[in-house]
C-alpha cells in the first residue's frame, strides 16, 4: 500500500481534534500514543479509570512507584496538579459527563455509531469488559482509532456489528490508517483522506455505504 497513516500518524491526527484544556481518557493500544502528539500550545489532562487525573508518561526506574499504575496496569507518573480518588468518584467523572474526550480502540464500528470492542462472542471465551461500557455511555465525544480492516482484510467499519456491542450509537469519529471518518445521521462520511489514499480505496475497504467528504 502506497499511502495512508501509520499508528503514530493516526494518533497524531486524532490529537489534532482534541481542544485545549480537555480532560481525556485514552484506551489501551494505539489510543495511548495520542499523549505523544499533543499539538503545540494545547494542554490535555489525562484521566485513568483507576483513580487519577494528571497522569504523566512512563517512569524511569528511579521514579517508579509500584502503586502508581494506569488502567492498563502499566506504571505511570504524576504531573504537577494531579489528584487521586477512589473508583466511584472516578466513574462519576465518566458517567456524569465530565470527561471531554475518550479515545478507544475497536474491533468493529457500525454506520450508526455502534461500537463493538470488548468481546468476540466466541463460545467458551472468557468475557472481560472493564470500563468500556461506562466510558462509551458517559463521554460525549468517543473517538475510535483503528486499522481500517482486520489483518485478514475484513472491514472493521460495518453496516451492523457482528460482535457483541459495547454501546449503541456512541461513536463520533473514527481515525483509521486510510481516513478520518465521521458517524453522521446519514451513516459514515469521510472527513479527511490520508495522504495518497483515494475515496474509492476507502469505499472499497468499508463494509457499509460511505459518503465522500463534503
Amino acid at each position, binding site marked *: 500500500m502506497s499511502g495512508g497513516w501509520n499508528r503514530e500518524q493516526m494518533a497524531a491526527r486524532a490529537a489534532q481534534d482534541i481542544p*485545549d*484544556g480537555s*480532560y481525556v481518557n485514552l484506551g489501551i493500544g494505539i489510543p495511548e500514543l495520542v499523549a505523544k502528539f499533543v499539538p503545540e500550545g494545547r*494542554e490535555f*489532562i489525562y*484521566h485513568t479509570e483507576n483513580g487519577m*487525573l*494528571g497522569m504523566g508518561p512512563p517512569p524511569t526506574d528511579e521514579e517508579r512507584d509500584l502503586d502508581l499504575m494506569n488502567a492498563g496496569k502499566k506504571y505511570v507518573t*504524576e504531573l*504537577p*496538579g*494531579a*489528584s*487521586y*480518588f477512589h473508583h*466511584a*468518584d472516578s*466513574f*462519576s*467523572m*465518566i*458517567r*456524569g*459527563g*465530565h*470527561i471531554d474526550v475518550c479515545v478507544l480502540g475497536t474491533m468493529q464500528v457500525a454506520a450508526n455509531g455502534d461500537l463493538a470492542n470488548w468481546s468476540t462472542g466466541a463460545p467458551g471465551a472468557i468475557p472481560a469488559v472493564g470500563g468500556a461500557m461506562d466510558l462509551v455511555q*458517559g463521554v460525549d465525544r468517543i473517538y475510535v482509532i483503528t486499522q481500517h480492516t482486520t489483518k485478514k482484510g475484513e472491514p472493521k467499519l460495518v453496516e451492523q456489528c457482528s460482535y457483541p456491542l459495547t454501546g449503541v450509537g456512541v461513536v463520533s469519529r473514527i481515525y483509521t490508517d486510510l481516513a478520518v471518518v465521521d458517524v453522521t445521521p446519514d451513516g459514515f462520511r469521510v472527513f479527511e483522506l490520508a495522504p495518497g489514499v483515494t475515496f474509492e480505496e476507502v469505499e472499497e475497504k468499508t463494509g457499509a455505504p460511505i459518503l465522500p467528504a463534503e
Partner: protein
Amino acid sequence: MIDKTYSSVAEAVADIPDGATVMVGGFGASGSPIELIHALIDQGTSDLTVINNNTGNGEVGLAALIGTGQVSKMICSFPRSSQSRVFPKMYEAGKVELELVPQGTLAERIRSGGAGIPAFYTPSTVGTILAEGKESREFEGRSFVMERWLKADFALIKAETADPLGNLTYNKTARNFSPLMCMAATTTIVQTKRLMARGEINPELVVTPGIFVDRVVEVADPVHEDTLIADERSYP
C-alpha cells in the same frame, strides 16, 4: 497552560442569567461563599432557584439574596434556623417557593446529578408525608422511595486552597455539600482563601479534583457570616 483563575468575584458571576438554578455550598455559616453571593446580589440576576441546606441567616449572604427578591425557589432541608428571619418573611408573603428535601436525600440527589445517576432508592421518608406522590418499591422485604438526580447551571463554592486547575481543599466542616455541588453544576465557581501554584497541593489531599471546577477567584480574607451577624451587618 490551563488557567481557571478569574480576577474578581464580579467577573466570575457575571454571566449567571435570570432563571438559573444555582447550588450554594455551605451548611449554615460554615463554608458559605459570602463574597460570591454578594457579587450575585450586585449583579442583580433574578428568578433564581437556589439549592442549599438552609436559607441563610441574618441579613447577609444567602439571606440577603433571598431578601432582595432574586430567589423564586429554595430547595433545602432546613429553612428554619434560629437566625433565619428573611426567608420566613418572604415565604409567608408568597414571594419564594420551597421544596423541602431530607438532608441525606438532598446530598445524594446532588451527588447523583454529578455522577450521571438519574434515580436511586432510599429508605428515608418512607411512611411520611414527604413520600407522598413518590414512587415506592420493595427490595429484600423493605420499602424504599425513588428519588431523582439534582443538577444546577451554576455552583458557588468556598474553598480553603485552590490551584489554577481547580483542585480544591476545604477547611474542616466547611466541606459539607461543596464537593457534591462542584460535581453537579454545569459551571462551578469557587472563591478560595489561598490560590496555590500548580503542584503545590498534595495530590492525596485534593478533595475536589479540578475536573469539577470551572472558575477560581482568590478571596484572601473572606468575611464570615457569623461575624457579620454579630456586627449586625446587612447587604447590600
